[in-house]
């Protein structure tokens, strides 16, 4: 396609960066609302849209990636949605309305949806140890982590956001040892009072998670490769002491994936700033999912909204507004950290359809 050509005579070009819940929900609605349009999803993953909420299942035994796909390949063919896999977006030229890929290919758009989500946040003071962490955010990362974890092995979780605690449940079920080094991001994105937090921590212990009070030890200062004969990783605390694990995983919440938008003139604070119609400061660009901060009239602040229901709703709202609608996003996601029948924690952020 001629990247810079105007589409005045041709079908409208929708480009979606990101292949998750928000992006796919938007693509589906865009096709419904604009049957003649060109829809392109750009993703750096080699897989089609898969259900990230099911990734803990990988630790219950080998499963082919096919089992995780949310839609079969035919789904995209039937809906004429082009999915460009394994390509990395490096910049967006808002003046010429082009998305630039790492291999210098420009992709023209009439309306752009940024739905790149977030990556596992790693505090800057642990950046030097980046290569020693194991991750869980993608299918590929989860497979790598599973391979590194021996049967009945020990997982050290730093932080302990709800993504990590979801994985912890599965790890305990397959007889792994889970050690959680607590941090202010434990239970993120839930916002708990001190009393609620203490209660929830007690529930984690009841589930079988071993707790280390990270603050009491001055926080984690480094992660090192374990010595011969010992587990593969050593976690060192600022105020002395250490602990060992086969894998060490950071679960400090998410950092929005917006690097390629920096310098485009589109408003960014931590995420892309959008109004309740999910439009950014650039009228041709929308954002949905964990990558955007939505203006809240109630809070007088830009807020992130997490959870499957929110993200899916954002994808829908963005698609409606990209096709001429005027829909406002309003959250319906339950945010209370609850308990199940066994007294274990149960989070609405773990739920997906």
């Amino acid at each position, binding site marked *: 396609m001629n990247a810079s050509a105007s589409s005045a005579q041709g079908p409208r070009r929708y480009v979606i960066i990101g292949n998750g819940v928000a992006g796919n929900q938007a693509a589906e609605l865009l096709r419904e609302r604009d049957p003649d349009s060109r829809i392109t999803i750009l993703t750096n993953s080699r897989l089609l849209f898969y259900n990230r909420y099911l990734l803990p299942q990988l630790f219950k035994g080998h499963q082919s990636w096919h089992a995780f796909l949310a839609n079969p390949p035919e789904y995209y063919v039937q809906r004429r949605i082009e999915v460009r896999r394994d390509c990395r977006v490096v910049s967006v030229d808002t003046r010429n309305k082009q998305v*630039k890929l790492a291999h210098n290919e420009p992709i023209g758009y009439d309306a752009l949806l940024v739905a790149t989500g977030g990556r596992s946040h790693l505090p*800057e*003071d642990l950046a030097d140890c980046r290569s020693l962490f194991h991750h869980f955010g993608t299918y590929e990362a989860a497979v790598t982590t599973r391979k590194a974890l021996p049967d009945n092995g020990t997982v050290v979780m730093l932080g302990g956001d709800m993504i990590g605690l979801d994985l912890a449940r599965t790890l305990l079920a397959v007889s792994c040892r889970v050690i959680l080094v607590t941090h202010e991001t434990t239970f993120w994105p839930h916002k708990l009072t001190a009393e609620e937090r203490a209660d929830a921590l007690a529930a984690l212990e009841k589930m079988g998670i071993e707790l280390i009070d990270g603050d009491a030890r001055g926080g984690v*200062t480094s992660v090192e490769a374990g010595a011969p004969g010992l587990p593969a990783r050593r976690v060192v605390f*600022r105020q002395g002491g250490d602990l060992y694990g086969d894998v060490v995983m950071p679960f400090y919440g998410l950092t929005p994936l917006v690097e390629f938008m920096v310098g485009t003139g589109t408003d*960014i604070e*931590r995420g892309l700033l959008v109004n309740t119609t999910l439009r950014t400061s650039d009228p041709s660009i929308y954002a949905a999912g964990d990558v955007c901060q939505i203006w809240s009239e109630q809070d*007088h602040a830009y807020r992130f909204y997490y959870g499957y229901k929110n993200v899916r709703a954002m994808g829908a709202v963005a698609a409606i507004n990209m096709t001429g609608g005027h829909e406002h996003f309003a959250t319906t996601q339950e945010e209370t950290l609850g308990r199940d029948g066994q007294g274990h924690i149960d989070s609405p952020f773990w739920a997906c359809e």
Partner: protein
Amino acid sequence: MRGDHVSPEKSDPSQDPFRQGTIHYSDDPRDAGWVRQNIPCQTACPAGTNVPAYIRAIAEGQHGQAYEINREANVLPGVLGRICSRPCESACRHGWAGNGDPVGICNLKRSAADMKDASHRITERLYAPTGKRVAVVGAGPAGVAAAYDLSLLGHDVTIFEREEKPGGMLRYGIPEFRLPRSMLEIELHNALRLGVQLRTGIAVGAGKGAMRVSTLLADFDAVLLATGCMAPVYLPLRGVPEGADLTQHCQDVEYGLGFLMDLHRGQNKRVGRRVAVVGAGFTALDCARVARRLGGQEVTIHLRTSEEYIPVTSEELFETKREGIRIKGLRTPVALRTDENGRLTGVEFVQNRLGGWRENGRRLAAPIEGSEFVEACDTLIIAIGQKTVNDFLDMRVEVDRSGNVRVAENGMTSVHGLFAAGDYVHGASTAIEAIGHARKIADKIDTWLVNRKRHRMVRMEPVAAPPREPAHDFIPRQHMPTIPLPERHQLTHEVECGYNRDLAGEEAKRCYLCDLRYQIDVNRCIYCRACIEVAPRNCIKLVCDVEVKPDGTHGPLQETKEWQKVAAIWIDNNECIRCGACFKVCPVHCISITRNHFVTVDG
């Protein structure tokens, strides 16, 4: 003129000066325009540092030579290699979309200073003494740079400095963990050793016991004011009279530069457990990092806009966060909260939205009515900028709306013989901007004093073969090693360790060497398209016209795909990454390479 090279009458290779290996000097505006347009790092540097030349020297292991190339434009390379705001890296071609990360130019500058031989000899090109006397007021970066240049030009220079030691903002405004004083001392000494008299502890002003500017004007042939921008910009807060000094209202409030200056004058500074820093520049980051080292447990920098729009380098921002400092955006302080004893308990903020753009390219923030909230803190450091003060002058000098002194084209203020340079003219800027401006003013003072004129020419040196290998494109940016976090509790322990020889060599290889000019001799080109076939980018074009602007730079190339309209096959230097593939493949050797840079000549 370079233009002759491609003209039909010079098409005979035996007559081509570049093929003959001779160095050529040009005052053709097109050649000057080419240098300005095609060496973005040098053009972006306020001091005009010849970046490709010194990086090439580092790649060849000639660190001393690299240091001297730096010193021609900036007399403090080891200092600037640590604290420069790096406008060159923002402009670096390697950082353009699709080209990767910019070259670590500043880190390389530092490596030139760090790795030159212990026995390295500084070279200076001195002019004969003129017998003229120049007084420089202020020994900051602008004053020192101007004094150095004026002394090279043969004038007798005396610097008057209020503080006990020279260096200005460099010594009193930048923490030692970013700029070791040993390096500052050495480079200041080298800058001032050519007979510059340094008189410290002498205040120039209108007060009792101070040296009057009018006295200096009477005693010297010229006076240069380089007093910088040292007065804090006050923060307007509810319940505080406009323009009031907040430090007089609450003992837990400090102004950023004052806080740092007190510390570096030797005062014992203290901060509370929770420290709020308001501001977005290097001073704000420095204050926060100092506060952390002074025992601040929860140090937070509050921004009006967001991280994307603050004028600091990403490395500084990263190291700041790494030291546990939080950065919170989209908020403006509106009031102080104090207890019954007048001690600070918190700051009230209002939530902002991002607004439009200022004339200087900075982002505006718009407060949202009714969105006030309070952040608890024990110490507030306000670092929202500095302004100039003129109350030290005992004569009337024209100033602009901002209170900055006006200077004419010849660098002179409205007072005969009184010149001004650096932040005192432009308002708060960066060390490299102050140095760059001071050098220009020093040149103008010289012209005014002895009617000596210099102008720039482009030196064009033939290069036999592409000096760069394509594999160098794939070398990632080399990160600056730093000391571990547990060792960062001291105020004097330098955080950045500097490149070693291997890192410096690898990083230097990344430079595209934008001073290399690849040109196709259209009279000898056989239009075989071989160069187009091997080009890694869309850098060789068939054009029907090339616009040359009045300043000698090129406008957009007018490309054509119709052969009958092709006037030339042209290397688009905006796209060219100096890989040399075209040069190597050309069957008729019609592509030449020259190395281009400005030289200053008398007359």
